[in-house]
């Protein structure tokens, strides 16, 4: 394209320069993502396989000085992560959706706005402080005399605290996007409000509720700090001998992917350092999968509502 050096030409030039600068910023913003994915795939890719994900951990060793130095597996950490995320979801998703229903359907007005604001504040609390809070709270209620200081329940509780404001706010938003005409239609049929909410409004919001819950799971699943004070760390699978109830088995420190990467990544042993990269890749893939699933559900729903 020919540029004329008059005012129009200058305008075009500035336009090109601005688009170029904006594009450069996009590239800069994408560099960390690309770099992270590239590094973890390059270093973790070769060791990531089914045996690594589900296998038991092995003793630390150095490949340079020891024969038969194996990397082992990250099974205990994977198990701990999923167990605690599951427990945390059991607490946070029902409570969060319930709170979201209150905010969107019953507590309209100042009360609702105040609670929403508090939820936003809550999601801004640094996650290490959440861990510290749960740790202290357990002492305050004298739990260590009954349970171990570090256990899977405490970890799940800390993760639930992280998840709660996210689930609540996304549920509230999801319910608010359900047009009021739908509620009015239900009321006008003589359907009580609580039943209209359960059978009609919640279902209309369905996809967004699931999306919110999944995003909260992804956010909590990626956390390391709240687990340090609560679930602590264990290199072993959850030990559940026959005769012992499953509930009491969880009253023990458990591993998790975040703490494992921190411990292995700072280790002097070569098998642990390599394992940390493999764990990092698996961790990224899992959380990515959850986030992407959440967004696909949301996208599908928007398509349906739009069409």
């Amino acid at each position, binding site marked *: 394209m020919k540029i004329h050096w008059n005012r129009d030409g200058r305008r075009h030039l500035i336009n090109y320069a601005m688009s170029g600068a904006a594009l450069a910023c996009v590239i800069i913003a994408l560099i960390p993502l690309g770099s992270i994915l590239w590094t973890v795939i390059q270093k973790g890719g070769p060791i990531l396989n089914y045996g690594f994900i589900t296998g038991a951990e092995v003793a630390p060793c150095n490949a340079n000085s020891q024969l038969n130095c194996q990397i082992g597996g990250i099974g205990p950490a994977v198990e701990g992560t999923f167990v605690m995320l599951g427990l945390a979801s059991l607490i946070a998703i029902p409570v969060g959706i319930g709170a979201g229903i209150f905010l969107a359907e019953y507590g309209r*007005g100042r009360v609702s706005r105040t609670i929403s604001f508090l939820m936003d504040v809550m999601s801004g609390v640094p996650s290490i402080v959440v861990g510290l809070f749960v740790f202290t709270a357990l002492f305050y209620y004298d739990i260590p005399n009954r349970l171990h200081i570090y256990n899977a329940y405490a970890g799940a509780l800390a993760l639930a605290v992280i998840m709660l404001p996210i689930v609540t706010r996304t549920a509230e938003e999801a319910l608010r996007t359900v047009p009021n005409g739908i509620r009015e*239609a239900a*009321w*006008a*049929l*003589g359907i009580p409000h609580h*039943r209209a909410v359960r059978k*009609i409004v919640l279902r*209309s919001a369905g996809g967004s509720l699931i999306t919110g819950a999944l995003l909260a799971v992804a956010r909590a699943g990626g956390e390391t700090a709240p687990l340090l004070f609560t679930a602590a760390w264990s290199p072993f699978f959850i030990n559940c001998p026959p005769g012992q109830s499953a509930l009491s088995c969880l009253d023990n420190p458990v591993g998790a992917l975040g703490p494992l990467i921190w411990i292995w990544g700072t280790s002097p042993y070569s098998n642990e350092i390599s394992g940390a990269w493999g764990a990092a890749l698996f961790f990224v893939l899992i959380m990515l999968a959850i986030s992407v699933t959440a967004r696909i559900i949301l996208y599908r729903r928007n398509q349906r509502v739009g069409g």
Partner: protein
Amino acid sequence: MDYQQLFGLHPTKMRAIDVSAFYGSKIAIDSVTLDIPEKTVTAIIGPSGCGKSTFIRCLNRMHEVVPRARVSGKILLDGEDILVQDPVQIRRRVGMVFQRANPFPTMSIYDNVAAGLRLNGVRDQKILDERVLRSLKQAALWDEVKDELNSPGMRLSGGQQQRLCIARALAVEPEVLLMDEPCSALDPIATAKIEDLIYDLKKSYTLVVVTHNMQQAARVAEFTAFMYLGKLVEYDRTQKIFENPAEKLTENYITGRFG
């Protein structure tokens, strides 16, 4: 006004006595007294913002679902004041169709029509099938949807959605059906279908239709009320309102001098 003389053979179904409605401190309708005859169509006309929608929303207590909205006066249904009764019960007897068709988005055509019954505890499949069939026929939609009862209600056209909403309202067998500008979002062909439907429905239901389309009122309604600035200006036989109104204000509105 002597309503019995006006209504002729139609007994009075609902009676609003000195009804005022408010949004916060703003008054939306100001001491309206009006009787609604049984098994016929009463139209409420008036310019936008005159309180006609608010008025019919009072008749099934939908007005008060708006925050800070309240209503005073008496509204009698078969002689009993609905303002002191359970609104949920009243809404089963006084159904409503809204300006914008609002089928339940996650439900099929069948489920939409059955929703009011199911969510009020009707489980018997035979009763549900029978009521869905009858309601869809009454709403003149059956022939168009009988082969796709399980497809989503949202997939229908705008006019079909509105008739689906009418079928849904009829399925709970209300005594009175309120229609809040039911055709304002529809094209002329769909509008004509709904108007035919209204004409048929008055054999078995008491209908109150809010419209700002005067021709529509003239076509479907036996009685017409004209409201202006929250007040009832005139209420009479539709023919009288359109041909020989008693009030100058009504005449000015009918002849299109404002509105």
